[in-house]
């Protein structure tokens, strides 16, 4: 292996231990396991979302105590499940990281992670606002970065890139100044 790493770069030993624990516990419920550039990615079904992630947080091999970020994604070419959610986990105890993905159909909800990592609150608000992904059980699913009266989900691929689309640029300062 070259010093610069690459696709063959091995996983850290602690992450391999966590990987074994997850595969022992869930087996085929881990739909896809991608290993590249010294990083590990799991793809799980939305129904296993909370169970897998809580196992990753609570198992001593994983010990992922921080939710680094939670992202939405829109893949319109994937017609049956155009939406995706990705979480990046960090373990400060072991110093390793992990990525977990799931694919969602249009309008399909996903259980919230705010019970596991409270920091998921803002990330899920943003993912809902930008992609329209519903997080069931979220305590405060309001818009975060756009105004309260904004319509639509602007990071979807079919959202118009340019212009005062549908009157979305409205400067209505009533009650705000």
């Amino acid at each position, binding site marked *: 292996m070259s010093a610069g790493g690459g696709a063959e770069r091995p996983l850290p030993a602690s992450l391999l231990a966590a990987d074994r624990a997850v595969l022992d516990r869930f087996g085929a419920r881990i739909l896809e396991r991608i290993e590249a550039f010294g990083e590990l990615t799991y793809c799980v079904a939305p129904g296993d979302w909370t169970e897998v992630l809580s196992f990753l947080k609570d198992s001593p091999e994983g010990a992922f105590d921080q939710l680094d970020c939670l992202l939405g994604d829109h893949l319109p070419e994937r017609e049956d499940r155009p939406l995706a959610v990705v979480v990046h986990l960090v373990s400060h105890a072991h110093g390793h990281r992990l990525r977990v993905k799931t694919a969602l159909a249009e309008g399909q909800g996903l259980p919230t992670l705010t019970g596991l990592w409270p920091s998921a609150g803002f990330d899920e608000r943003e993912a809902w606002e930008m992609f329209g992904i519903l997080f069931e059980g979220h305590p405060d699913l309001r818009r975060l970065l756009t105004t309260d009266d904004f319509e*639509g989900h602007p990071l979807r691929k079919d959202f118009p890139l340019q212009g005062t689309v549908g009157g979305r640029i409205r400067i209505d*300062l009533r009650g705000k100044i």
Partner: protein
Amino acid sequence: MDCSLGNIAGRGSQEEAFDEPLGGPVRFPGGIAMPVQLEKVLGFGRSFSFWPLLFGLACCAIEMMALGGPRFDMSRFGMEAMRASPRQADGMIIAGWCSIKMAPRVVRLYEQIPDPKWVLAMGSCAISGNIWDTYHVVQGIDSLIPVDVYVPGCPPRPEALWEGLEMIRERIKQSRHAYDGLRRIPAREALAQATASSVPPAVPLEVPLVEVPRS
């Protein structure tokens, strides 16, 4: 009036200073009137201590900081005292693009600066929105507040901002403001609407937890 003040103002001889049309006195609430000539003296004093609001919106603020730093050093011109409170500021430099979410805050900061005040729109985004003709950017800050000087560039170099501040200085000396010629100040008009109309907003502020149908 003390004629020697006219000389201090660099307006030439006493005779020339008095040859200029005086106009009507400036009236303040409470019945106090101020001759225009004295207003010029005040403007002269103000022009050498223009304190902008310590306020940056985006990357143009980096160039604004460069102007405040030792290389360009706007403290040479009495403009280094960036006030963190709008109550102490003489104006604001809109440095960067303003999102629609940020717009009410910008307007509130502008309204909190005591009169007289001057506004400099720095960079293409503050002037026109630049390439961000999108869902979230105010297309020109002058749709919200009156702007005195526009400094184009992406971002403008510190020298360009300096030139803009010199133009602000000229306007201060002449006691001219962007809101002088306006029949309405957009933000103030919105404020008047808010107080005058009892009609609730067309869109409720709380967004319901449903998928918004796309048109």
